[in-house]
Structure formats: structure tokens, C-alpha cells
């Protein structure tokens, strides 16, 4: 597969900017709740909720509803499948970045 063809095979679930933001955050953090993700991403409640649902559907994100004291938490974390997918996505993007930086140098 050539480099441009590889780009066409990018994971579209992750490629969407809002979902990419969520995946990047969850890649760095073991787990975080909905409110934290909302504050960090700057997305609205509905928007974040729908993107998380899409990621959960793809089994990239695990969503657990629990309580800490009286405070209800919606805890999100990346699944191993999600980690692998994000790693593969980053690898493909790195190829693009390498190509562009090589072109610049020339």
C-alpha cells in the first residue's frame, strides 16, 4: 500500500477532531470523568456525550457509571483495543509528518 493509500485507510472513528481530542486525553490519563473531559476539551455536554457514545460503540472507550461518596461519576478510560487503534493511527500520521518534513528539508 502506498503512503497516500495508507492515509485513506485512516481510522475514521478517531480521525474526527473532537474524538481525536478525547482519545489523546484518555491516552495520557488512566481514567477521567465526564466533567473533567468536558472542561479539558471545551465541548458541550451533548457533543461530548455523542462522541463518547460513538467511541464506546467502536469499543475504544469504556464508560462506567459509579459513585464517589454522593457524587455520581461517569468514568471514561481507553480499552486495550482503543489503545492499539490510537497507536496505529499515530503511526500512520507519523508517516505523513515524516514525508512532509523530508520534503521541507529538500
Amino acid at each position, binding site marked *: 500500500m502506498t503512503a497516500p493509500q495508507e492515509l485513506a485507510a485512516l481510522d475514521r472513528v478517531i480521525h474526527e477532531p473532537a474524538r481525536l481530542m478525547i482519545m*489523546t*486525553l484518555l*491516552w*495520557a*490519563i*488512566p*481514567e*477521567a*470523568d*465526564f*466533567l*473533567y*473531559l*468536558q*472542561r*479539558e476539551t471545551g465541548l458541550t455536554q451533548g457533543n461530548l456525550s455523542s462522541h463518547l457514545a460513538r467511541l464506546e460503540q467502536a469499543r475504544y472507550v469504556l464508560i462506567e457509571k459509579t459513585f*464517589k*461518596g*454522593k*457524587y455520581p*461519576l461517569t*468514568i471514561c478510560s481507553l480499552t486495550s483495543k482503543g489503545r492499539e487503534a490510537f497507536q496505529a493511527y499515530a503511526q500512520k500520521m507519523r508517516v505523513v509528518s515524516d514525508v512532509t518534513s523530508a520534503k521541507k528539508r529538500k
Partner: protein
Amino acid sequence: MIEQADHRAKEYWLSDGIPALVFGAAYIVLFLEICACFALLYLIPHVGSNWLWFFNSAFVASPVAIFLSVAWFGLWQEDIIEFIKSRTTYPRTGYVAPPSYWTEKEEEKDDPPNTLLGAVLRWIGHLPVFESGLGRRLRTWLWILFWTWLLGIFQPSWLPTKLRWVFIVAWALPSPASFREFRRKVATHKREWTKGFGFTFGVLVVVIGFLWKQHPTFGMVLFLLSPGIFLMLGGAIELTRYLRRNPVPRT
């Protein structure tokens, strides 16, 4: 970007001042337990024979009690902090996994070699960065050390002469640099006024130390207690500011 998210999340655990508050309180409780232990030692020769068995057994049991309380706090400190956070921080700014959980996950992720070299390399990878929790904790401890030294200089009656000079030199060497850094921070970040408050607090303690120079025991107690008070005070200020800045979001 991932590194930035990582640092921000690590900083998040300490940013509300609750860990500092809890650790300060634990330090004071531990110090009071040790004081009680010494008080028993002082009281034993003065009590009547009827109560001697009680004071003796209390004195023997006190080191065990201190050890148990330290162990209990070591095991449950994260749960205590989480208990307070679940009522103050989480409803306002959300939840992020606590540090212990973080380490487990990181070990899983990095899969570092289980050798001394591996441990050193891992440590280098976690060198204190300004935003990271580790860097912040280090700074807190450096501040505590700084004030402890400062107090040590002005409480010379119970310090050996040679040690006093070590304190004075150790304090004097980094002080111009730290003062310059403090001024720079106050100029750029207005919220750094808390450091000014800490400075005033330190001066106050020194003044009190001077006033009670005739009572070395009081000076020593104050000196040993100051890290706990300083931590609690810093934590309380940080928490108040945090709660003001982050009101509970409307649902």
C-alpha cells in the same frame, strides 16, 4: 500534546490544596502523638504508685500507637483525600484517577526493564517539570525546608554552634536566587501572593521565636510544628482560591 495532558492531569490531584491540607494535619497529629509520648516520660516520676502501672503501660504502648497511626495513614491517605475531594473538587471540576492508580497504569504501559538501570532511566523520564505534580511537591518541600532553616537560625539556644553555621550558610546561599524568583513570579502571576503570605507567616513565627527566646522548649515545639502549619495554611489558601474560581456547574 500528550505530555501536556499528562502533566495537567498529574497536577490536578494537588491543585486544590486538599493533599497539602491532609498531609499538614497528619504531620501535626503525629507530632502531638510524639509530644504525648514525651509528656508520659516526664509525668511518670511525678505520679502516685496507684497510677504508675497505667502510665508505664501507656508509655510502652505509645511507640506502637505511633507506628500504627503512621501505617494507617500511609495505607488510607489516598482514600481520605478522595473522600474530601468527592465532596468539594469532583462536583466542580471532575474526577481524574489518583496517583497510585496512575503508577500502576504507567508501569503497564511502559513495561520498563526490572533492573537498577531501568529504575534510573524511569526516574530520569519523570524528572520534575514545572507543571508536573512531582515538581510541585518538590517545590512545596523545598519551601518547607527553607522556612525550617530560617527558623533554625533564629532559635540558636538549642542548636549546636557548628550546626547553626551550617544552617546559616545553607540558608544564605540560595536566598538571593529564591528572592529574585519570588519577585519575578509575583510580577507575572498575581496569584503568587500566597507566597507573600507565607513569607509574612514565616516572619511572624520568627518574631514569636524571638519573644520566647527565654523558653527554648517552646521554640523547639514551634520549630518542629512549623512544617505542618505551613502545609495546612498553604493547603487552606489553595482550596479557598480553588473553590472560588470553580463554582459548581449548573446542570
